[in-house]
């Protein structure tokens, strides 16, 4: 399994993402600078890490969503290969149109950082097969703009097609229907606000995020 982590100016969870991938696959991912226009040959999995790409200027993820590497990420997704966006990565995936909806400012208007209890809504995807449906897990969140919004028709469709993968147990940001993470229709692109890469080690932040990487990278 060959992985790539995209690094934008302002990304700050790129190292954490790389550590998690290396822990599960035994191989360090390629760190791909945003000005590249191609992914390394044979890339199987692409991760868009958290952070503040381009300083969140204009709108979270807006500028990263049109940066040089994005066409290659889109092509990768369109070929049916897995793409995961966490936090700012989720915001970027929405800006690129690979995922539906919008992420608005948290309802409290505050940045929120806490260990967030989630429920796994659908364990039948390549991102979540390491969990059981309805399992409760705890994953840290840390964001200012994670308030998921979509119109009712889109929300109904997401629910109906099993595209809602994680739901907050204690909605920290006002997200519609407590949505914490979603996949695209085809199931190969996933975005989530919580940080599974910060929960891969029992000693530091818990280990409930590990199963996500194991599901995807197949070493469980």
């Amino acid at each position, binding site marked *: 399994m060959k992985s790539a982590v995209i690094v934008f100016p*302002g990304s700050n969870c790129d190292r954490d993402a790389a550590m998690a991938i290396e822990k599960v696959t035994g191989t360090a991912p390629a760190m791909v600078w945003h000005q590249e226009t191609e992914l390394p040959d044979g890339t199987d999995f692409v991760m868009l890490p958290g*952070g503040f790409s381009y*300083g969140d200027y204009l709108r979270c993820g807006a500028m990263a969503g049109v940066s040089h590497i994005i066409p290659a990420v889109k092509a990768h997704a369109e070929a049916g290969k897995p793409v995961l966006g966490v936090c700012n990565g989720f915001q970027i995936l929405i800006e690129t149109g690979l995922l539906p909806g919008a992420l608005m400012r948290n309802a409290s208007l505050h*940045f929120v*950082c806490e260990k967030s209890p989630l429920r796994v809504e659908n364990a039948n995807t390549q991102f979540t097969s390491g969990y059981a449906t309805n399992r409760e897990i705890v994953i*840290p969140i840390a964001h200012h703009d994670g308030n998921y919004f979509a119109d009712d028709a889109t929300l109904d469709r997401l629910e109906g097609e099993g595209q809602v993968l994680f739901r907050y147990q204690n909605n920290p940001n006002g997200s519609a229907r407590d949505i914490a993470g979603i996949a695209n229709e085809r199931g190969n692109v996933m975005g989530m606000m919580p*940080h599974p890469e*910060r929960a891969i080690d029992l000693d530091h932040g818990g280990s409930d995020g590990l199963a996500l990487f194991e599901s995807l990278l197949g070493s469980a």
Partner: protein
Amino acid sequence: MTQFAEGITQEIADTHLPRDEYEKAVEILGRAPNLVELGIFSVMWSEHCSYKSSRVHLKKFPVTGEKVIQGPGENAGVVDIGDGQACIFKMESHNHPSYIEPYQGAATGVGGILRDVFTMGARPIALMNALRFGAPDHPKTRQLVSGVVAGIGGYGNCVGVPTVGGETNFHAGYNGNILVNAMAVGLADADKIFYARGAEPGQPIVYVGSKTGRDGIHGATMASAEFDDESDEKRPTVQVGDPFVEKKLIEACLELMATDAIAAVQDMGAAGLTSSSVEMAGKGQVGLLMDLDKVPQREDRMTAYEMMLSESQERMLFILKPGKEQIAYDIFNKWELDVATIGETTDSGRMVLTHNGETVCDIPLDPLAEDAPMYERPWARAIPEPAVMADELSQPKDYEEAILTLMVSPDLSSKRWIWRQYDRHVMADTAASSEDPADAAIVRVHGTNKGIAITTDCTPRYCENHPIEGGKQAVAEAWRNLTAVGADPIAITDCMNFGNPEKDHIMGQFAECVEGMSEACKVLDFPVVSGNVSLYNETNGFAIPPTPAVGGVGLIPDLSKRMGFGNVSAGDIVMVVGDTEGHLGASIYLRVMENREDGCPPPVDLVVEKRNGDFVREQIRSGAIKACHDLSDGGLAAAASEMAMASGTGLNLVHEGDLPLHGWLFGEDQARYLLAVDEAKAKALRAAARAAGVPLHVIGIAGGEALTINGMIDVSIADLKAVNESFMPTLMGEAD
């Protein structure tokens, strides 16, 4: 007859320098200074940059030790943490700007302290902050809390360095001058530390980072003056930060530092281009020739004066080895940051600046730095207040109410509202932060099983009533907090926040706090490696309480043996290390229940402190202890409440003996720890304590869902949590 250069009047001179310092500048130059030179003298000789009032006292601090690689004098302190690694840290104040413009003031405080740490080659791994606000009911408090917290979070979260801990106090003494002290901790290889020293003649001076604008001009001078009712008009002197640029700057600088291109480096902090260039030149004993036309500028028609005094953020100055400029250009261009060679070092010993083809400044460097004014200001010793012991005070009518009142009081209440806004987990190495029941924050040394423990401490009400004991206590409490998580305390940084040093009693507070701190540092082998002084924290003649904030750092050799206070289960034996005499002078109890702030604080016996602490640490390492919490603000009642809340298990305490119950519960006697111990290990622990000559008192047993005392007083954990969590949301108008 005072001489003036063309265009300079007595009035202009007066706004820059006191008259005796002006004469000194004339003497150094051999002529009257022009406006640019006047500006440079003014900032370099400001209290903020020159430490002119404090230097004579700061010399008393012990600054060396087995683990000290770099003490005070560089951008930050450096200590050895073994395995070829070093920990680099410093705390700094951003008080004046944060009061005037709380969001940007606090944000740029974080940015500045981060630069101090990565300037030395360290990757920042943790941020802490020590905040003091005015009375909760003061009309400005809510706005200031809101702005400062958002500013700290806005900067730290974006830069991607976890904000792992800190402390927040409220007191009317800070109504007109809040304190925002930020601390940064970084990691580097011990043989790859970068210094301001090291420049040689003939080396290029390379400017990197943001462009220079007109913001923050004379910030260092503002920070060296008292406030009055017109202080809000000083808003233009507050800098504006951009954490996105800082994040890029960190990565670009660390990339450059991985090459061998650098001779010396200094961030542009207070007094910007002036102090960064002068400090590097002074430490390398070289001269400077800089062409200000080459400085990247944000605005048109900036004058030399403005460029030299601007405190625009996110800028660094490198002196490179000759011929290595292209390496820097490539890296900074990649990160889309400005980079420009603006001059070179010379052997002239002078700072020569040109602008628009003319020489606008020519100052001999040595006298500018070395002959800066130093004052031995007159100072007066504080008059000691008598101790306040429990038997002099009537007992509270209702102990349950007293405990709940304590736990909802501003200083003891939960600060969740604050730390929930800080990213505490980014970098994925946080082992304990504000949310965790531990007396210090703990951050794993990346890729190892070692941990850095970090704490910030100071009890200003003790310093107010007895500066020497208060100074000792600030250091001792930091040492104790590190001990309580199982760390070996290594060294401290300090942030000395005081009022106007031109007043005898304020200078006395400073001198005596330093005296107490120095003594504690010596006995506890806990040297000072970096620090900052913030004076003139006064408004309309009212000074803040003396607040020598201490940032302590320690090492946990094996993270699996770190300690907290949340791991208590039913049946555990509850014990207290150390003796309790019931000192209530300057205590939280006295303030909250008796509405009194007088009295001598609890005395600090440093020998006992060390003996008790060394015992506790040894027992933590040997696995004898399940939970450990230092006893400080609010005494046993507060510590036991916190332990019960954190573990969800009640504590059932029994008091025996002659000491009145309120002295036992609320006394703030020092050198004490509250322990929970597995019943099976209790006997051996008591024997070990006897052998070590350490007082260890069994005071109860864990179980149930309440804190109970003598079977009579019964406060449920649910009630404790409800009140403890209610203060901040209520203050901020966000209570449910």
